[in-house]
């Protein structure tokens, strides 16, 4: 009976999430930053699925017909939906910026400050 503690998944997810954050902080290319954000979202997805599974397992012990956990998986689905929409708009913005300044380096975004 393979049992994986939920903490493994939590830590995995946190690690991915953190790597995403570090990426957001360290990179200057807007697209890469955006990709790191996608990485963060995926970390959340993993976590949600894991929790879904965890709750399901807990509920399954008493009720074999339980649907506990479905909502998290659907939530992941919605996250993907939103991510897709975001990507559409985000890439449109990046492309628009690229058209104007021929760069996607966020360090050049310094007209607005102070």
């Amino acid at each position, binding site marked *: 009976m393979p049992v994986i503690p*939920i903490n493994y998944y*939590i830590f995995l*997810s946190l690690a991915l*999430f953190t790597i*995403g954050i570090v990426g*957001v902080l360290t990179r200057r290319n*807007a697209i890469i*930053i*955006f990709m790191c*954000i996608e990485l*963060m*979202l995926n*970390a*959340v997805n993993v*976590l*949600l699925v894991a*929790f*879904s599974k*965890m*709750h399901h397992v*807990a*509920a399954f012990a008493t009720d074999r017909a339980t649907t*506990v956990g479905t*909502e*998290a998986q*659907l*939530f992941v689905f*919605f*996250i993907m939906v*939103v991510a897709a*929409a*975001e990507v559409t*708009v*985000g890439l*449109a*913005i*990046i492309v*628009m*910026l690229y058209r*104007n*300044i021929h760069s996607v380096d*966020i360090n050049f*975004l310094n*007209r*607005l*400050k102070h």
Partner: protein
Amino acid sequence: MNAIILSALWGVLMMYTGFATKNTRTVSVVALLGVMAVLVVNWMEYLGVSFFNIDTKGMLAYNGFGLIFNTVVLFSTLVYFLLSGREIEKAGKSPSDLYALIFFILSGISIIAGFKSLLMLFIGIEIISIPLYVLAGSDKSNLKSNEAALKYFLMGSFSTGIMLMGIAFLYGDAGTFYLEGVNAGLGALTPMKAIGMVLLLASMSFKVSAAPFHFWTPDVYDGTPTVFTSFMATIVKSAGFFAFLKLFEAAFGKFQADWQVLMAVVAALTLVIGNITAVFQQSVKRMLSYSSIAQAGFMMLGIFAMNIFAKQGMILYFAAYSIATIGIFAVLSKFKDHSIDAFNGFAKKHPLVAFSMLICILSLAGIPLTAGFFAKYYMLLAVIKDGNFLWLAIVAILCAAVSVYYYFRVVQAMYFKEPSHEEELEFSPSFRFILLGAAIIILVLGIHPDYLTGLL
């Protein structure tokens, strides 16, 4: 529910108006009719007439509070359309698309007005945010606008990530996305719930531009075309606050003692940073961006206190703040030069507009007999009622005093200085009339806030 569906449909309608007519005026009129219609159906829902009977499995539920909030926001949008319609028309080649985006946002706000599930919160906020990224960048040939859009987008997505992480942890703890479910359970915070709460606090603070998550605000507000800054800073921000309030009331109400210190810190930081940084600004637009942070600080007090005064006060605050800010932005958007000096001697050239703007500024500064005073009054009352955080109230009033400093620089420019700019401005009679109307609404609410708060 009425409002969600109607505004979404109207958004679609707006998309097609662009094909049907090239006359931008017509588009504006259609949009105006639309927001009126949404306002009416929303009000009808408040009165008990619901056109759609959809089982949302409890993910959306409207009570009086939410509907009144929605009414206030929609009414503000109406004022916004009336005052800024012309500017929206000028903002892009196809105003119909921009109007459509605004209607989608309204639909998102209506979701926020009634969410009972973290899922709806998430979707609602995204429906609000994604069109906003676009609106921020709608002045495509302006690099500032581009920059604002990208900054807003990157940071907004990042905060979405934070929020989702929070939601995930909450789910992990509670096994449900329903707010009541999160609030249920033991009285103490488990680590997971605490983590989720802090992450949600951070991301919601981001949405309402509370310090130290506010940094996007000045840049984005400054870069965004003025007409949309106005929308962003008022209506959208109100929605953010409503979501914040509702989330923390319904999902973490039981743990108020646990998050209150954090909330107090955020509120105090927001007040201090917003107000103090605004002091130095030379551009009215940027000053207003900081002021919107400052005002957010005051609204944070409501979230911090989370009692009956806070809820009444938030509604009043939304109305007072939104209408006043929309009014000021509407005038500002007629200016090419956004520096304070551009307003020199404004009162001599356009006394009526200046007077209406004065009322708006006084309201923002919280001077009595304007709605802004009672809004702040409620916030302070809420904080003091809470008991142990009198220092927060003191910080708030000191910041309010600082705010007078920068708001009144505009007043000084308008009233006490000699005209220095040659810029000729035209204000149509209808604009002046509507602006005056907005000022009168502010005054009426300032003398009799019961008209609004009594509804709760």
